[in-house]
C-alpha cells in the first residue's frame, strides 16, 4: 500500500470513528440480548426500540448496512481495506450490526456474482434498505446433507415455472417476504445438473409455511410447502439447470456467516461471567479448577480463531484464499460455539436450568445453549464440512 493510500485510510478511520461516536446510540453498543432485539427488516417489521430505529436509519442512509456493496445498489461502496476499518471501529465501541438479513449475508453476494442487471437493480437496494426480508429454500425432508438430491419440481409452462414440493428448516419462512429457492428443472439430468436457483414472493398463491417447534422451545425454522406456485422464468438467477453453481457459492457465504455467529470477543470474558455463579478464591481464581482450565483453553482457541477469520479476509483480498476454506471455518466456529455454551451451562449450574422465570429471562441461557446444537448441522454438518476439506483442500482420494 502506498503512503498516500495509507494516509487516506487513516483519514477514513478518524472520520469513521467520529461519525460512529456521534451517531451510534448507547443502547446499540452492546450485543442484542434476544432475537426480538435484532432488527431483521421486511414488509411487516417493527422496530423493537427507538434507538434501534435511529441506528438502522443512520447506517442505511450511509449505505453501511452493506458497506462493501456498490453505491448504485444501495451499498456504501467501501474498499476491502475501508470495510475492515469500519468493522474494527464498530467492534471497538461494541456497535451491533444495524440490520441482520439473509439478503445481506447470503443472497446479496450471489446476486452480485450471478444476477443479471435487472435482478440486481430490483432486489439489492431493497435488501440494503431492509425493505424485503428473505428466506432460503434449500433443504428438503429427504435432502439434508445430500442437498443435491432435492426433489422440489419446477415445470415449464410458457413464460413461467410451476413449482411443487416442500422445503424444511426454512429459517424464519413465516416472517419472510421473498424466498431464494433451489428447484429441480430437469429430472432426467444427473443430480447436480438439473437444479435451478429461483426467486419468488412468499405471498404467491400456493405457498404455505408451518413453524417447527425445536428443543429450545423456539420455532426459528419452518416447513414450507409449494403447491403449483407460478413464477416467471425471468426470476431464475444465472443459467437454468446451473443453479448448483449459485447454490455452492452462496453456501460459502452462509458458512462464513455461521462460523462468525459466536459472540467472539464481545462483552465480558467468559471466565468472569462464570465467576458470578461459581465464585472465586482469595487470589481471584475461579473456584472450580477444572472449569477454569476449560474456559482458558476455550479463550485460547477463540482468540486463535478470531485471528484466522481476520487472516481469511486478508487472504481473500490478496487473492490467495482457497474457495473451500469457509467450510473449514464453519466446522471450527460452530464446534467452538457449542463449547462456549456447554461452559456457560456448566458455569450457570442450577441457575441455568430455569426455563420460564423472569429471573432467567425466560430461560435465555438454556434455550440459547440448545439452539447452538444446530450450528454444526445447519448449512452443512460438521461431517460434511470435514469431507469437503478432505476432498477439496487436501485432495484425498475417493472422498
Amino acid at each position, binding site marked *: 500500500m502506498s503512503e498516500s493510500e495509507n494516509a487516506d485510510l487513516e483519514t477514513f478511520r478518524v472520520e469513521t470513528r467520529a461519525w460512529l461516536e456521534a451517531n451510534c446510540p448507547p443502547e446499540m453498543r452492546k450485543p442484542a440480548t434476544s432475537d426480538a432485539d435484532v432488527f431483521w427488516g421486511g414488509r411487516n417489521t417493527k422496530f423493537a426500540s427507538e434507538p434501534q430505529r435511529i441506528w438502522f436509519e443512520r447506517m442505511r442512509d450511509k449505505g453501511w448496512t452493506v458497506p462493501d456493496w456498490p453505491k448504485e445498489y444501495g451499498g456504501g461502496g467501501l474498499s476491502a481495506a475501508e470495510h475492515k476499518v469500519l468493522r474494527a471501529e464498530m467492534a471497538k465501541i461494541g456497535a451491533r450490526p444495524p440490520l441482520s438479513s439473509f439478503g445481506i449475508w447470503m443472497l446479496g453476494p450471489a446476486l452480485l456474482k450471478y444476477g443479471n442487471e435487472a435482478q440486481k437493480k430490483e432486489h439489492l437496494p431493497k435488501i440494503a434498505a431492509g425493505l424485503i426480508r428473505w428466506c432460503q429454500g434449500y433443504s428438503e425432508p429427504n435432502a439434508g446433507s445430500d442437498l443435491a438430491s432435492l426433489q422440489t419440481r419446477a415445470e415449464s409452462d410458457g413464460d413461467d415455472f410451476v413449482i411443487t414440493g416442500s422445503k424444511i428448516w426454512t429459517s424464519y419462512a413465516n416472517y419472510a417476504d421473498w424466498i431464494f429457492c433451489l428447484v429441480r428443472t430437469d429430472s432426467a439430468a444427473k443430480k447436480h445438473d438439473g437444479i435451478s436457483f429461483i426467486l419468488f414472493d412468499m405471498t404467491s398463491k400456493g405457498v404455505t409455511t408451518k413453524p417447527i417447534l425445536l428443543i429450545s422451545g423456539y420455532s426459528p425454522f419452518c416447513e414450507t410447502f409449494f403447491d403449483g406456485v407460478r413464477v416467471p422464468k425471468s426470476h431464475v438467477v444465472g443459467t437454468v439447470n446451473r443453479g448448483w453453481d449459485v447454490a455452492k457459492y452462496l453456501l460459502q457465504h452462509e458458512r462464513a456467516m455461521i462460523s462468525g455467529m459466536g459472540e467472539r470477543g464481545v462483552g465480558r470474558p467468559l471466565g468472569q461471567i462464570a465467576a458470578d455463579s461459581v465464585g472465586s478464591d482469595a487470589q481471584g481464581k475461579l473456584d472450580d479448577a477444572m472449569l477454569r482450565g476449560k474456559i482458558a483453553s476455550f479463550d*485460547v482457541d477463540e*482468540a486463535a480463531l478470531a485471528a484466522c477469520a481476520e487472516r481469511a479476509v486478508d487472504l481473500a483480498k490478496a487473492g490467495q484464499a482457497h474457495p473451500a476454506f469457509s467450510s473449514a471455518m464453519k466446522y471450527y466456529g460452530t464446534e467452538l460455539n457449542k463449547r462456549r455454551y456447554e461452559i456457560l451451562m456448566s458455569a450457570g449450574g442450577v441457575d441455568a436450568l430455569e426455563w420460564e422465570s423472569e429471573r432467567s429471562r425466560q430461560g435465555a441461557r438454556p434455550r440459547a445453549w440448545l439452539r447452538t446444537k444446530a450450528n454444526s448441522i445447519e448449512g452443512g454438518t460438521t461431517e460434511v464440512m470435514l469431507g469437503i476439506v*478432505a476432498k477439496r483442500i487436501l485432495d484425498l*482420494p*475417493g472422498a
Partner: protein
Amino acid sequence: MALVLTEEQSMLRDSARGLISDKAPVSHLRGLRDAKDPTGFSKEFWHSFAEMGFAGLLVPEEFGGSGLGFMEAGVVMEEIGRTLMPSPFLATSVVAASALNRGGNAAQKSEYLPKISNGSLLATLAIDEGAKHRPLQTSLQAVRAGNGFKLSGAKALVVDGHVADLFIVAARTAGSAGERDGLTLFLVNPTAKGVAIERTIMVDAHNAARIELANVEVNADSVLGEVDQGAALLDGVLDIGRGAVASEMVGLSEEVFNRTVEYLKNRKQFGKLIGEFQALQHRAAELYVDIEITRAAVMKALQALDADVAKAASSVAVAKARAGTTATRAVQEGVQMHGGMGMTDQFDIGFFMKRARVCEELFGDANYHTEQLARARGY
C-alpha cells in the same frame, strides 16, 4: 496490517527455504546425531547463514545487521521447523540478540551485536532452573561483591550452552523466588572461573546444557538493563523467543502434516488407499484446520510483537499455547497414521515428534501459557 506475508517476506521465505531444504534436510540432523557431533550444528553452514544476513536478521543496521522484524524472524524459524535444522538462530540471533538490543547500553551493543551479525559470536539466555519454565521462580543468587556481583546457582535447558561464547543469565539480586522485583540479567563469560557446563544430550538431538555457577565474579558492566528491574526486559525477550518457537512449531506441524497426507495418498491396505477411509479423512481435515488456525494466531502474535513488544503478551500466550497443542496433535497423528513405519528410527517422522516435545517445553508449555491468559483476563 494484513495477516498475509508481504512480497518481501515471501521472498525471504523462499530464499530461507531454498537454502535450508538444500543444505540441511532432516538427514543433516540425523547425521549430526549419529556422529555424536561435538558442536551439534554445522559451523560452516552457520557462516553461510550469516553471510546471507540471517544471523543478524533482528540486529539494527548500525550494528551490521539486517534490521528486520519479528515477522521475518518467524518466517525463518518456520523454515527451520520444516527440516528440524539445528542452528544457533533461535538462541543467538533471536533471543540473545533481542536481549542485547533491548536491554544493552551503547558499549554492550557495539561490543556484541556486530559479532552476532557476522556469525562469530554465539550467545544464549540461561533462564530455567526447575523442571518447568517458571521465570519468576528464578532463585540463582547474585550478591554484591566489591564493584560487581558474585553469582551462584544452576540453570537447565540452556540452548547451545556448551558452545556459547556468552551467557545471559537471569539472576535474583533481591526478593525471593516468585517475586517480580529483584530480577537482574547478567552477561557471563562461559570460561569464567566457577562456571561448570554439562552438555545434555536431548531427546531431539538439539543442543542444550546444564550450567552451574559457583561464586562466579562479574563486574558492574556485566549487568544487562537495570539491577532488580529485569523482569520487564525478561518478559519481552521471552515473548520474542516464544513467538519464534511457535513459528518453528508451525513449520514442524505443517511438514509432518504434509508428509502424513502424502502417506495417506500412497499407502494401500484392504485393497484401497488408506486416504479413502473416512475415519482418517476427518482426522486429517481436523488437523489441517488446527494448523491453519494456529498459523494465524502465530502471525497475529508476531505482528503484535513488531508493533509493541510490551503489549504483545496475550497474543503471544495464545500463539505459544496453540502451537503447543497443535504440534503435539500433528506429531501424534503423524506417527499413528504412518503405522509401524512411524515407530522406526529409519523413518523421519519420529524426529519431528521429539523436536515438538522440546519446543513445547521451551519458554513455557501450553498449560503455562493458557494459565497466563486466564490470569490476564481476570478469572
